[in-house]
């Protein structure tokens, strides 16, 4: 197996992009990544997308992208793995380079969700639930998260104040990120402590409220991968090394988990990634966690080993996960503020970490001297999870 480096990264601003088609967005992000690396052709392309077939009635999107971007005759595959499609596509690209079969690989993730109504977008994401024993009841991903949150609060003492603190922190960071969907600052008074908060922040899937959830977004992100030993001839960028990844699965239905508060796939994916990278959670300087709902940032930070069970929420209140704290989490704004175009998210996390590890973000968003980054891309309701450990390489 060869060591694999990320030598190019690109992203387009997430949000509502009515003017762009799905393939437009994937193409723009791909060009940015190619130009950033300084390469003009690749051997293979992996595209992450969950909803093209359902929302745009377009299939074979990887074939469309290589044609659009002028990358013919590169090999091209679509990776659909629910909200973990992005992480899965990066993983497949890493395997392709590590194996020695391909040298230059483009991974692009994108999703266009805002051209349908909120009802239809919610229904689209709900199609990942079990088709006979969950979906017909009207369960949604916020609903799954609500049921999980109720148990996690009961078992580990997580409070609404902790959840609100995550929403505030991530929207503060999002306001500094030009790629973020949400750039609005919020206050504790506005969403928790005042009579207005009832109107501003209504329940969405009790005990979760509106501001506990990420927005529905359009967007795309892309990276270029190559073998570490070819970095010097291919690019001028500081390489970011894919030190390890992990992936694990769990039961399709929430009801069949012995302990529904135990996100086994998160723990296993993280363990694999840390082991492969020969790195400990305490050595990580910056993390991108999958905060599709605020509770997930706390639960994931505990499951991957950054904090003990029951301590993640307290760490948030103590400011340990802010920029400048012990372990900055979601300095990008996370899914909560950057947005969650589902197929793009796992790739966007890797793009953000690449920028952090290359030390090229503006001061107000850069984690000082970051050398090791970590991401969790959480698919289904935790039934398919991909983790990465990335490290700054030598120029």
């Amino acid at each position, binding site marked *: 197996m060869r060591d694999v480096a990320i030598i190019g990264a690109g992203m387009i601003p997430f949000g509502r992009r009515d003017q762009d088609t799905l393939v437009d967005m994937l193409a723009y992000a791909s060009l940015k990544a190619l130009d950033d690396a300084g390469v003009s052709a690749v051997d293979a392309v992996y595209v992450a997308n969950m909803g093209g077939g359902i929302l745009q009635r377009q299939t074979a999107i990887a074939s469309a992208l290589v044609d659009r971007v002028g990358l013919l005759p590169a090999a091209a595959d679509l990776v659909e793995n629910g909200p973990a499609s992005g992480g899965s596509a990066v993983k497949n690209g890493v395997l392709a380079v590590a194996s020695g079969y391909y040298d230059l690989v483009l991974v692009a993730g994108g999703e266009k969700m805002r051209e349908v109504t909120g009802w239809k977008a*919610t229904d689209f994401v709900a199609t990942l639930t079990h088709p006979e*024993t969950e979906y017909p009841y009207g369960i949604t991903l916020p609903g799954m998260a609500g049921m999980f949150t109720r148990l996690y609060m009961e078992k580990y003492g997580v409070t609404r104040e902790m959840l609100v603190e995550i929403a505030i922190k991530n929207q503060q960071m999002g306001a500094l990120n030009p790629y973020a969907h949400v750039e609005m600052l919020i206050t504790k008074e506005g969403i928790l402590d005042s009579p207005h908060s009832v109107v501003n922040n209504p329940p969405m899937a009790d005990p979760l409220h509106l501001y506990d959830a990420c927005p529905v977004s359009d967007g795309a992100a892309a990276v270029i991968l190559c073998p570490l030993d070819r970095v010097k001839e291919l690019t001028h960028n500081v390489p970011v090394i894919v030190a390890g990844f992990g992936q694990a699965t769990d039961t399709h239905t929430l009801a069949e988990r012995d302990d529904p508060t135990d996100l086994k796939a998160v723990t296993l994916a993280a363990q694999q990634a840390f082991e492969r990278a020969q790195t400990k959670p305490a050595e990580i300087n910056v993390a991108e966690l999958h905060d599709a709902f605020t509770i997930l940032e706390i639960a994931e930070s505990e499951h991957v080993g950054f904090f003990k069970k029951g301590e993640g929420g307290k760490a948030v209140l103590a400011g340990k996960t802010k920029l400048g704290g012990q372990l900055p989490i979601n300095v990008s704004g996370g899914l909560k503020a950057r947005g969650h175009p589902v197929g793009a998210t796992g790739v966007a996390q890797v793009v953000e970490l690449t920028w952090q590890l290359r030390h090229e973000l503006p001061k107000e968003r850069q984690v000082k001297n970051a050398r090791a980054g970590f991401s969790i891309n959480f698919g289904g309701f935790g039934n398919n999870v991909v983790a990465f450990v990335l490290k700054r390489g030598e120029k």
Partner: protein
Amino acid sequence: MKEITAYKCKKCGRIHYPKHERCLNCQHREFELVHPEGKAKLLTYTQIFNLPWGFDERFLYIGVVEFENGVKAMGQIAAPDGADVHTGMLLAAEWRPVRYVSGEPVYGLKFVL
């Protein structure tokens, strides 16, 4: 509750719903067919206000229960807004329409207080 069939592993006894080809615990392939029995204990629930396309209700209560013989399942809870719904409460399970597709009812688990 004959409408629901669960699958009890003949080797280790683990109860599965829905069906799996092999036991999630021991990979055994033979199962005894069982149906949910008795009251349903509410393990967790949520009141969802942002419903997906296909529902006209303002909100839905959805929960996961465990029946007295160990079968676990998701279903809707028939309760008005603000009802006293809490984890650990015992509910009765009925087989009723849970949604309509092109005017036709789709049947499923409905838990009543």
